[in-house]
């Protein structure tokens, strides 16, 4: 009888365990909490809603509120709210993340977490590395018979037909550094970099709208422009006469989106759950397949066709031009004045 009762108890326990194992795992109940995430709009927002926010809300009961905008808005907000932040996660650029960490407005990536370990080594500089891209060249196929190198943008017949991005930013700082390298120096020599870039003047367009830029490149009004790979490759599918080149001498400039956990944020546990999904295989695969942003998660396996179009491994990253971002940040204000005076003025 005693044996029988134990058996029934064991059976009951097994039944409960089996039942609970079949239900979705509720990591924790966050009902009533709101996670605030600052991020870019458009396709990035769409993919985050599909792969991260939807599942996270379903699993935790929490709400995720997106603050859409540029990184400047997010940087301003997390610095202004340093002592009492309302944002939990901020997506920043490669050059802003280390500065934000140094200023104590974001949390240092935790090497003990699985998401840290899943990301390729040496990429979590300041925050968690979200995606990989590189500054390459969008070009008009009539203007260039073959994918151009950087130096080809300085051809005399193309003077006045090379568009530039707004300064400061990873694209504008990137092309300025490339100009410095073509002048035999690097980004530390501002005079050489600005003088070389000024040779492209007059600048036909300071682009802020990629569709407008691609339309102009397509019809040849603009011959070429430095653009970040993911945006360019995704956008150029709609145009027949546009190509995208990863130059080799020097290599394209490495850019990286970073996922930052805001220091002293209202919902740190929820933020970590969001980060796990955003940096996870599902979302990063979607980033690669739809946005052509290279994954940082070493577990992501891509089709060879897609992989060939992306920066998706440490070996490829080592071939890229990497800039001294702290130095560029330090000079950002002074160089903005120089850009206005020396590059924009015809």
């Amino acid at each position: 009888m005693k044996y029988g009762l134990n058996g029934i108890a064991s059976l009951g326990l097994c039944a409960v365990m089996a039942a609970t194992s079949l239900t979705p795992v509720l990591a924790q109940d966050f009902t009533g909490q709101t996670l605030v995430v600052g991020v870019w709009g458009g396709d990035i927002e769409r993919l985050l809603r599909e792969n991260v926010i939807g599942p996270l809300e379903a699993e935790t009961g929490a709400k995720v509120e997106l603050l859409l905008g540029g990184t400047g808005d997010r940087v301003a907000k997390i610095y202004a709210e340093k002592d009492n932040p309302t944002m939990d996660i901020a997506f920043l650029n490669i050059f802003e993340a280390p500065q934000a960490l140094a200023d104590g407005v974001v949390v240092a990536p935790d090497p003990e977490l699985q998401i840290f370990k899943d990301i390729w080594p040496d990429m979590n500089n300041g925050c968690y590395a979200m995606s990989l891209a590189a500054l390459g060249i969008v070009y008009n196929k009539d203007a260039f018979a073959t994918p151009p190198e950087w130096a080809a943008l300085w051809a005399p017949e193309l003077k006045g037909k090379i568009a530039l991005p707004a300064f400061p930013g990873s694209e504008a700082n990137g092309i300025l550094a490339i100009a410095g390298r073509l002048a035999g120096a690097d980004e530390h020599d501002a005079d050489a970099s600005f003088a070389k870039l000024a040779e492209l003047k007059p600048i036909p367009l300071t682009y802020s709208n990629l569709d407008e830029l691609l339309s102009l490149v397509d019809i040849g009004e603009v011959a070429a422009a430095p653009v970040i790979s993911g945006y360019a490759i995704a956008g150029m599918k709609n145009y027949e006469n546009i190509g995208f080149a990863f130059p080799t001498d020097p290599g394209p400039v490495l850019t990286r989106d970073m996922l930052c956990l805001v220091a002293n944020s209202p919902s740190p546990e929820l933020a970590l759950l969001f980060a796990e999904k955003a940096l996870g295989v599902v979302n990063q695969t979607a980033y690669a397949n739809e946005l052509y942003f290279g994954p940082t998660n070493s577990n992501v396996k891509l089709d060879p066709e897609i992989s060939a179009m992306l920066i998706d491994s440490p070996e490829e990253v080592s071939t890229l031009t990497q800039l001294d971002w702290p130095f560029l940040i330090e000079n950002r204000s002074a160089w903005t004045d120089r850009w206005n005076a020396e590059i924009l003025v015809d």
Partner: protein
Amino acid sequence: MARKSTVLLLTPGLLLTGAVFLSPFVFLGLTSFWTQRPNSLLIDPAFTLVNYVRIATDSFFLGTLFRTILLGIVTVAICLLLGLPIARWIARRAVRTRGILVVLMVTPMVSGALVQTLGLVNLLSLLGVINGLLKQLGLIDWSIRFLGNEGGVLIGLVQAFLPLMVLPLITTLAKLPEDLEAAARSLGAPAWRVWVTIILPLAMPGILAGSILVFFASVTSFVTPQILGQGKVQTFGTVMYQQSALVNDWPFASALAMAMMLVLGVLLLAVRAVRRGLERRPVIGSAS
């Protein structure tokens, strides 16, 4: 008792104004005397004049200030040139339809600067309607650059702020006695002389009011020069945006804003002095 009730009635409005206008303004002024820490985006709240020294000694910012004021003056001049005939026609000839015409003038302003400016982009950009039409007609092979220069920004400013000139002019011109013009004409004055000696002096209050409105709206505008200038035309508004949102140097951006307000304050005082001078002049048609 009456004074007490007046104070009570004013209190909510004063509190609201203090909270939403004065306190941010005070903070803006305070921030302008701070600076960014070296190698950091954090602010060092120690009093310094370094931002103002930078503005006063850097030719780029002085040049930008000069260009912004010049754009404002040219905008006023064009708005005046276009606005006077429009206002006179509405005031004199379109008596029955005046209300509708005034509403039509004001309607674009209700939609906001962004919508109007984007409309102009569609019209004037390299891929816009005008360039498309010229190409269709075979008149050009390559697009004409209407935007990305001072000309493009001027078109936008005039389009946006012309109603601010026309509305006060209509009010002033509608009050002018028609007899004065008729008398001048009957004495053989040509049309230009009627304008110069009769209409313009009498319309001066409206001209001044419209000019002040258009000038201040132009020099403080951001959306129009930012979009139509395509990053190539720097005004004080676009430089402030650049310093705050892109460079994240909020103290310096605050100093730029304070410097702009200082300049506008001085200009406003100058305009006030001119206005007082005009008021002291004998008026045509007065009893004296």
